[in-house]
């Protein structure tokens, strides 16, 4: 069964059409990569799926576990198991990371009809997750993303994902600005979640992340449409030929 079905999705930003009919099916338990040149609509797709304001859906439909995803508020999407790892994680001065994460975790638990987690058990779980990701406990004491380096911000996204245990993660260029060590940590974080209850859309510009998170399928986005789909070898081919050749081929 498909976890996510995107059908003829069209969306515009400030009156400009960015997504021009996206069709994509993500089966349960699979990881798909979405690649494409700058401006092809990769991030717009991530934002439309997660419900950010300012994006107008002008056509098509998205079903998440059979439900109409586009009709849901961002927090409902999160509660039903969708997680967006931001390309540019947002700083929240005055909000402690531990508090933020516990609030998020409990909001999601409440929405799912589960019991809230108390501070002690939360810290236990958080510390365990940090250890798995080779991150320092000190991360919990800092304000959310404030004063974090680019790599720390991306790792904090993966840390949140590890705690919230989504059914579907959308990683929006999580590899950008990462050195090879941080890239491995991020990849390990995603790979640790892989299994029959976890699916992911990995949005990336480069092939190198896909050496560490090997996708089941690769889709190439160009000018708001998926122009090619294939196995992991497609990413390798792109690395060799570049997007320019592909765009010419598609035309």
């Amino acid at each position, binding site marked *: 069964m498909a976890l996510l079905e995107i059908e003829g999705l069209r969306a515009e930003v400030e009156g400009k059409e960015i997504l021009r009919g996206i069709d994509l099916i993500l089966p349960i338990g699979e990881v798909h990569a979405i690649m494409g040149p700058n401006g092809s609509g990769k991030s717009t797709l991530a934002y439309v799926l*997660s*419900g*950010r*304001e300012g994006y107008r859906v002008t056509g098509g439909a998205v079903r998440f576990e059979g439900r109409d995803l586009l009709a849901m*508020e*961002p*927090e409902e*999407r*999160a*509660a039903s198991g969708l*997680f*967006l790892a*931001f390309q540019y*994680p*947002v700083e*929240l*001065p*005055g*909000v402690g990371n531990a508090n*933020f994460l516990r*609030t*998020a*975790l409990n*909001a*999601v638990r409440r*929405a799912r009809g589960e019991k809230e987690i108390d501070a002690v058990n939360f810290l236990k779980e958080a510390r365990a997750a940090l250890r798995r990701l080779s991150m320092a406990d000190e991360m919990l004491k800092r304000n959310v993303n404030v004063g974090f380096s680019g790599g720390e911000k991306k790792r904090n996204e993966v840390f*949140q994902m590890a705690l*919230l245990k989504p059914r579907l993660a959308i990683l929006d260029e999580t590899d950008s600005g990462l050195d090879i060590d941080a890239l491995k940590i991020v990849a390990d974080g995603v790979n640790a979640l892989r299994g029959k209850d976890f699916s992911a859309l990995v949005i990336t510009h480069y092939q190198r992340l896909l050496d560490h998170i090997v996708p089941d399928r690769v889709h190439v986005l160009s000018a708001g449409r998926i122009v090619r789909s294939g196995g992991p070898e497609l990413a390798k081919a792109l690395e060799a030929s570049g997007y320019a050749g592909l765009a010419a081929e598609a035309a």
Partner: protein
Amino acid sequence: MSAVLQEAAEGFSARFRKLAPRLPGPAEARLRAASSFRARGFPDTRDEAFRFTNLRPLADLSFAEPDGADEAALALLARVPASEWPCLVFANGRFRAERSRLPDDYHVAAFADEPVLDSIEAEESAPLTALNTMLAEDGGVISVPAGADAGTLVLVSLGAGEDGRAVDFHPRHRVILAAGARLALIEIVLGEGVYLHNPVMEASLGAGARLMHVKLQNESARAFHLSSLHVALDARAAYEGFSLICGARLARSEIHADIKGTGASLAMNVAQLLDGERHADTTAFVRHLAPGCSSRQAVKNVITGRAQGVFQGKIAVARVAQKTDGYQMNQALLLSDEAQVNSKPELEIFADDVKCSHGATVGALDPEQLFYLRSRGVPGDEARAILVRAFLAEMLETVPHEWGRSVLENAVDTWWKDRPL
């Protein structure tokens, strides 16, 4: 002064003439204040110091003396967080010894027993203080001897209108810290119904003395709060204030500071949290009269509904006050289209080697931050509450007194619960 305000002022002057024989303390100081108040009355908005705060609604009510039972006010004690500290309780301006717990290692008295009135020189320019001097009947006198650390004292002021009657009261508090003395004063001001609360606090800090002053002001949406703090600092003395102002129909908090000794410092951290039709005004007059002193006022406003916040700060630096370090900041988060904030810094500098700065910011909640929180499953209302709390964090988290901090934090949390945004 406008005709209606003049009439209102005349009502209070008439009350003074009636009560004068029974009022405690030196008649001369009372008469001087009465004549000053009669001359100036309640200022209108043509008065620069009241440009953003219109006292006009005062004139629509007629105020009377509280009946002395003050039951409705005393009932509010249930809302005061419990503590083990020594505590002075005032209900409609009257000291309630039976509800108070006096400290045993330093001096505390009722104003009626020690009615000193002539220590303020600023009455000419402070009509609300003059009104208090004219009518003050009770208050607390707190006196900490040289070198002593008095620990924590809680000062509770409760106000309530009586059976549809608007009452007024003008308590007069004095805090005297001798050289090297220390005190943490936690002030909690609560009220219900229609009344006018016009307290004056004089704080005199001897050389090297330290006063930490944490204040929660959370009064009725129909009440008037006109308070004045007069603080004088000798050499190396330090005043450190943290106020959470939830306001009233009209709340004006004046701070008059005289920094008189070398190396003294004054810090005021204020948060104004306002909703509905509330209006809160924090106005500071800081006089630097000695070299090498610092003063700092940081005001954070969170305003929703049709509420209005005001911060005015005047820093005057005398010629002798070289190396003065002055700082003023007014920040506002406006949560509705009709919320309003007014800001007016004023510098008057006669010394040539000083550092004085001021700034102001106004904004709404950041949509990026809201989306980030919501994308993590936090519902919109809760996300907004978290961001507002974060805006106030700088002020709340720096309160060095743990219990005092919890009083302010709980007040902010309760504020939310009552007012989903």
